[in-house]
């Protein structure tokens, strides 16, 4: 027996007090082994470009109330106590915010009047906490639903990419839109280690539609080029004896061509001045407009991320006209029109709208610079897709600096991981799933299972 082994024998007699890590539930490992064979999902059948993945899960019961997701990231982090968790601070909160009680909620009717009329259509989580107060880190955290500094954090796919790979099998052959669409999200998280077909299809909304879907020399020339290319290259592209991969590269061409000169694409991704005005005529509003049109087109898009890079990081002069009042209007115009159109089109019931910043802002009196700095306490917004409107989950203390009542089953703060679990559950995706196709072979957990606590969907929003 080596010295090390002797030491270890001695060590086993002594208790080890630090338990938090292993307090996690035991089913994850046990059921992993039991279910590896039995509950392999059909996801690998849908994977066209990736290796077949073994996906295991614990058989969680999902809500399965939503067909689509619109995930809005308010990058920069809006002040929660000036908006969706309004705390009137005497001589600080502008009177123009016009705090008004609506169904027991104190609402800034002056700041966001249109949303105030839609309170019965959305719910607010007020017991949410961020993990970190650094913009880039926390924004990434919100989009991947896990710690970006953890082992697989640097290759973790966007939540939307997981939805895309899970829902790939539900696409029909005539659908031409990508499953995961990202609007105004150029710097957002991509598909991580998953194949590029599940990465976000990034679009900056433009009245003319999507870039590069027409050829500069016109459709006739394009078709002649297309035909020439095929005549010279089809021996490489079609009927490959070894099946999929090279045909898949041709599939990307076929899909690309399907999006070109396609009135469906132009209708959904382009827009009129009238509609743009109705959404506030802003970049954020246009993204909301395109999101609404894309879902209405029913062309296979299931997850839409909208990033509002509109300057929510208000460290100074937060109440100046071009700051919160302007951004509140921008949000009010775009989001209210989105909810309204989704409802008109009969899509709100099947479309989960989630809106969140990466964290909250300081509360009470303003800072010396007249602004609010970074703060962990924050809010999250939910609408549609089975969410019961008019509901508030959790509550904060008098100044909004901390949660007073968690208001949900887990009796703790709601975290980004819980939002992630909520999205998966609403979409009918088992959030306990583990994909065994990650590059280091560790197993990619849809919602992290090795954290200090077990993350869970916020079911209180739905029942």
């Amino acid at each position, binding site marked *: 027996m080596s010295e090390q082994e002797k030491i270890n024998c001695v060590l086993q007699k002594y208790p080890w007090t630090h*338990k938090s890590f292993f307090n996690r539930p035991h089913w994850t490992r046990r059921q992993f082994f039991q279910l590896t064979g039995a509950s392999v999902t059909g996801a690998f059948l849908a994977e066209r470009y990736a290796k077949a993945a073994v996906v295991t899960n614990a058989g969680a019961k999902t809500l399965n109330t939503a067909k689509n997701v619109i995930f809005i990231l308010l990058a920069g982090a809006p002040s929660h106590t000036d908006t969706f968790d309004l705390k009137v601070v005497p001589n600080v909160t502008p009177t123009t915010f016009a705090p008004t009680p609506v169904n027991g909620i104190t609402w800034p009717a002056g700041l966001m009047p249109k949303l105030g009329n839609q309170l019965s259509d959305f719910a607010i989580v007020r017991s949410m906490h961020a993990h970190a107060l650094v913009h880039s880190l926390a924004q990434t955290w919100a989009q991947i639903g896990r710690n970006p500094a953890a082992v697989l954090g640097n290759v973790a796919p966007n939540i939307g990419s997981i939805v895309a790979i899970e829902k790939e099998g539900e696409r029909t052959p005539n659908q031409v839109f990508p499953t995961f669409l990202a609007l105004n999200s150029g710097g957002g998280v991509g598909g991580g280690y998953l194949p590029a077909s599940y990465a976000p299809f990034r679009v900056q909304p433009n009245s003319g539609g999507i870039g590069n879907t027409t050829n500069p020399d016109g459709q006739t020339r394009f078709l002649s080029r297309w035909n020439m290319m095929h005549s010279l290259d089809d021996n490489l592209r079609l009927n490959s*004896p070894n099946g999929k991969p090279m045909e898949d590269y041709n599939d990307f061409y076929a899909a690309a061509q399907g999006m070109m000169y396609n009135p469906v694409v132009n209708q959904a991704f382009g827009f009129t001045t009238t509609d743009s005005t109705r959404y506030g005529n802003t970049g954020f509003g246009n993204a909301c407009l395109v999101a609404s049109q894309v879902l209405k087109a029913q062309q296979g898009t299931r997850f839409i991320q909208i990033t509002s890079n509109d300057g929510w990081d208000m460290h100074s002069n937060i109440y100046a006209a071009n700051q919160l009042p302007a951004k509140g209007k921008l949000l009010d115009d775009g989001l209210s029109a989105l909810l309204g159109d989704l409802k008109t089109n009969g899509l709100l019931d099947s479309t989960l709208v989630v809106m969140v910043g990466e964290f909250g802002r300081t509360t009470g009196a303003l800072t010396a610079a007249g602004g609010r700095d970074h703060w962990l306490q924050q809010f999250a917004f939910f609408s549609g897709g089975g969410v019961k409107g008019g509901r508030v989950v959790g509550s904060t203390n008098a100044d909004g600096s901390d949660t007073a009542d968690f208001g949900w089953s887990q009796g703790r703060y709601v975290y980004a991981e819980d939002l992630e679990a909520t999205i998966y559950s609403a979409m009918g995706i088992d959030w306990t799933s583990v994909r*065994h196709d990650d590059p280091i072979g560790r197993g990619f957990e849809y919602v992290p299972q090795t954290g200090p606590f077990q993350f869970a969907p916020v079911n209180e929003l739905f029942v």
Partner: protein
Amino acid sequence: MQRPGWLSVWSGVAVLTLSAFVVSRADDSSNSNETDLLPVEHAECTFFSGEPERFMDQTVRQRLRAGRGNFRLSALTADVTRTLGYVPPGSRTYSFDQTQQTGSIDSYIFGALKTNNITPAPKTTDWEFIRRVTLDLTGRIPTPERVVQFINDPNPTKRANLINELMASPQWVDKWTMFYGDLFQNTQVKNSTGLDRFTQGRNAFYQWIKDSLSNNKPYNQMAMELIATQSDNSFTDGRINYIVGGVVTGGPNQDIMDQMTANTFDTFLGITHVNCLLCHNGRGHLDQLSLWGSQTTRYQAWQLASYLSHTQARTASVTNGTATTTVWTLLDNTTGFKTDYTLNTKTGNRPARTAPTGCKSGQPCFYVPPQYIFNGSTPEAGETYRAALARSITGDFQFARAAVNYLWAYFFGQGLVDPPDTFDPMRLDPNNPPPAPWTLQPSNPQLLNALAQHFINSGYDVKATMTEIVNSDAYQLSSRYPGQWDPSWQPYFARKYVRRLWAEEIHDAITQSSGMPVSYTVSGFTDQGFPNPTYAMQLPDVAVNTNNGNANTVLNNFLRGNRDDQPRKQDGSILQALTLMNNQFVEQRLAATGTAAAPLIKNNLAMANPDLVNGLYLTILSRLPSSDEMTKATTALGGANRTQAVQDLVWSLYNKVDFIFNY
């Protein structure tokens, strides 16, 4: 630094987390199936013995392994090359020589092929070879003149001569500065951790990588400098930006030590599982993945992280004349950074680090001293911890293995250990194989060790190893396989596997072949005195944009990654197709007349059809057309509008799969 004996008592405390786990599991074992699946008891306390833990149903392990062998590469290769069976005229035929010199790459590869009764593909043609090796070594396609010259060269050593020529070219430096920039993760901002190196820091690091490669600095020296350098200014000493890359915002200092450790062991030893072990013991987590990892504890990983415990990375203001800038400093043994890795955190990005019960701050048990757990080495008197770490790492045979395996993975599309950073240190020695059911990890362990030894013997000369690789018959096999290919042969390298060109290579192949060069300004780079990049491969970072929006679209859609949370990828996508078909970047290179005309078209338009078609194929695809392609192309050119037909032909060639792939 030698630890006192009694302190060692605590060196394995993390093991007890495990026993707590086993106990709680036992309480929970209502399901009888678990008997086969649970770990065996450790009555004789054999936790650190060589015996493998029985953690799972062996059939599950088999299935997971099977799922991981996807054979995608070989299928892809077969698809690309199926119709390239046509051999352009002028190729020399090589007699396939299987009497390879003992100890060479080929002796191992062809030995394994013979053992497994696999017939290798024929040697690649000169046409294929010059395009392949030029792209692989320099990231460029060869010029048509060089292709023709090479084909006509009767010298029997012309391939070796070409390799030497490419190795000595400045393009080689550009390409490998990009490669090692990827490996060392040299980007300005890492969103996953909130780190900002600032543009000047990124630029200085870029310049250091470039200079090191230009001077063919030995790789062990590069590694030592990257690991151990101290400096108070990351803008003037680019090297410290490597360790600074481990800075994590929003946590205790141990988070930073852990991340720096994880990065270092991933980059230089290819052991990414150290990152896992910095959060938890390997047992119960890495049992299917790594024999070494499954037997290694969090405490041992802390012993590695402790090498970074005396290192302080912080920003500081530097005043130069009237200008004040913020730089990173990386210094050792500064105030507050003189104690070893401390077990006193309950917050941060990793699980709590807690000292054993009853252990108080100030007592030795409260701290973890550094130890290089692979051989027991510790810092020597007068040596900084990081210098000791650099000494241990670069003196480790695994350091050479990891370095050559990264190269092999690049040149062959798949590492001898793959992915190349998932080394299992206990499954590498062919003379000491792991106990069943484990198998040796490298697909050819003898070759990996030989290549690593050659690398060491060469003085850690990166160029020498590359030269050895690309001169081998194994590298020069055709990607065409004449007989029936069995996908299970993939690990034996019986043919060359294709790869999609890098984003930068696509960009540069288009600008070079069209005769319309570029000169970009890059914010944070050219405005700081660096020359304008004239090829995308000269960009300092994959996360920078140029002043040309169309070029940026090309680069980003071809998935160059971001050196942080988006890896470089070879995947295809709809956006790639839309970009090559419709983006102005290609379109403007189809202009046939006027001042903006593309020289490729304008200068060749007057030629007779066969010469024109030959010229376009040679310039864009580095080969001549097949007779079928020639017939189709000349037929199209005989139509009403010849100029348009030429444009359409060029467009078609840029969208051909054998333009997009290196085959």
